[in-house]
């Protein structure tokens, strides 16, 4: 055992090292914010925003504000579709007695391996025939695929551990299976549902590939596609680009602070991303 002062010193060194690691790894995030806060600085950006201004954010909002709303609508839609499909499926699969249930879980795991660009390649043809290219519905349905396998696996793992007696009691009282699912299983699975929904939201908000491939016009343009086109053209105003980047990173930052416990649960739930 080390004597107490030496131990405390060691702890302080560890904290200092951890802060240094944090500074190095989060520098790009800092630089994004720093550049965004120095409008009209041209190409020379100072190490610190000594005279910060929000001009870049105003520009970013006026040019990308609509894209942010599109991202929000698409991500929320994807969460709704994903949970509506995953929750009942997970409930049905949360038992060992179902013949073929195991095969379904295996299939769910395998779908996570299908590269998105392959899905997009084939989906575009189908969407063209169905008139779903350049539509909110089309993008929402495609983005739901980003969270579905993860949500099913996570929710099933949770529902397996629900106490059966409560549901049995409801059934004895005359509730049918569907009512029991809606009234009892769903409320009891609240935390797992929040975690699944949160990750699906992040996946859909971050989606770039489906947005890029399933849209040929600017009708449905999420912010990931917006920022990509922003830098695709000749960039004259990096302040505005970085301000857009900051705004598009806001959901992640907010969730990291507000929903820390659900994020931890989701990552512990395994196969993420």
């Amino acid at each position, binding site marked *: 055992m080390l004597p107490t002062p030496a131990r405390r010193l060691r702890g302080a060194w560890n904290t200092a090292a951890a802060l240094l690691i944090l500074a190095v790894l989060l520098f790009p*995030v800092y630089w994004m914010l720093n550049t965004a806060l120095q409008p009209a600085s041209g190409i020379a950006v100072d190490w610190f925003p000594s005279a910060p201004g929000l001009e870049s954010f105003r520009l970013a909002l006026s040019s990308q504000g609509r894209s942010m709303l599109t991202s929000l609508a698409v991500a929320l839609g994807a969460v709704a579709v994903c949970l509506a499909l995953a929750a009942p499926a997970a409930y049905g699969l949360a038992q060992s*007695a*179902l013949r073929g249930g195991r095969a379904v879980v295996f299939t769910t795991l395998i779908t996570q391996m299908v590269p998105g660009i392959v899905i997009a390649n084939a989906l575009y043809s189908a969407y063209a025939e169905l008139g779903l290219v350049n539509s909110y519905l089309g993008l929402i349905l495609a983005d739901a695929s980003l969270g579905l396998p993860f949500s099913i696996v996570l929710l099933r793992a949770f529902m397996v551990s629900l106490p059966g007696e409560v549901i049995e009691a409801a059934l004895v009282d005359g509730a049918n299976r569907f009512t029991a699912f809606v009234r009892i299983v769903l409320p009891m699975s609240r935390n797992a549902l929040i975690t699944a929904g949160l990750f699906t939201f992040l996946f859909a908000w971050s989606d770039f590939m489906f947005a890029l491939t399933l849209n040929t016009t600017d009708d449905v343009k999420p912010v990931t596609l917006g920022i990509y086109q922003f830098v695709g053209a000749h960039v004259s105003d990096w302040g505005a680009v970085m301000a857009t980047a900051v705004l598009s990173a806001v959901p992640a930052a907010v969730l990291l602070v507000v929903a820390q416990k659900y994020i931890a649960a989701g990552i512990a739930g395994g196969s993420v991303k």
Partner: protein
Amino acid sequence: MNHLTRRPALLRWLFIAPALVYMAAFFGYPLVRNLLMSFQHYTPTTYFTGEAPFNGLDNWRAVLADPLFTDALWHTALFTAGSLLGQFTIGLALAVFFSRRFRLAGPIRAVLLLPWLVPMVVSAVVWRRILDQEHGVLNTFLRGLGLSDGGVPWLSSPSVALLSAVLVNIWIGIPFNMVILYGGLQEIPRELYEAAALDGARPWRAFRSITLPMLRPVITVVLVLGFMSTVKILDLILALTAGGPADATQTLGTVTYQLSFLRLDFGQGAVVGTVLILVSAVFAVLYLRANRADFGKGK
């Protein structure tokens, strides 16, 4: 756990059916359609005429004979191997470090997740600015230290660009590796280390003969998941280098995208996509084998 067992099987399947239909449409159908498309002749006018006649192995011959495909295959291998090596090594080192008890360890570990939660395209755009040869802050820093006069051509030189892409992807992947491996480390009983310390084992020895073997299942899962998400990389490269300069950062993902969505030759794009699936399938098998232990426990 038995609360559902009395339910007639048909009713249970009704709960599962919508998700199954969806997965058939959004995973199953694309797989089959992609394979069929790789034998069809697509032109830019296909979507007006609706005609994509079968052309045997023409697409496959054309793609396999294209030096760009071979390059992309090689780049993908290098990119994946380099990314995984960097992400895993640094992620493991950080996981071990943060397992120590010190003030602020928890909050700092949580904030380190941020790079992984930011949309990948956005990260790539930020890095594109940081790595700019003339105005990027990294070269400004190196010049300040007197390490580089003209600045390193991070993204503008064909011989450096792939390495830069790997570095950026390592940065993106570190948090995920760290968090999963940290979780695994917490599962290792402390008594093992205490016993080893009593036997006089030094920390490095304890790491090699306790930590690594006990962590093996978690390491497998992390590496396989990392492989799956890295091998199909697209967002990062498109926003960082767009496959350039001089095709130096083309990967299987970007080539598929270019063939299908820029050249509108969906047939040839489907060929590269199918190769991507085959590569992934090999590792899917590994993943399922690594996961099998979990299923045994009904987890």
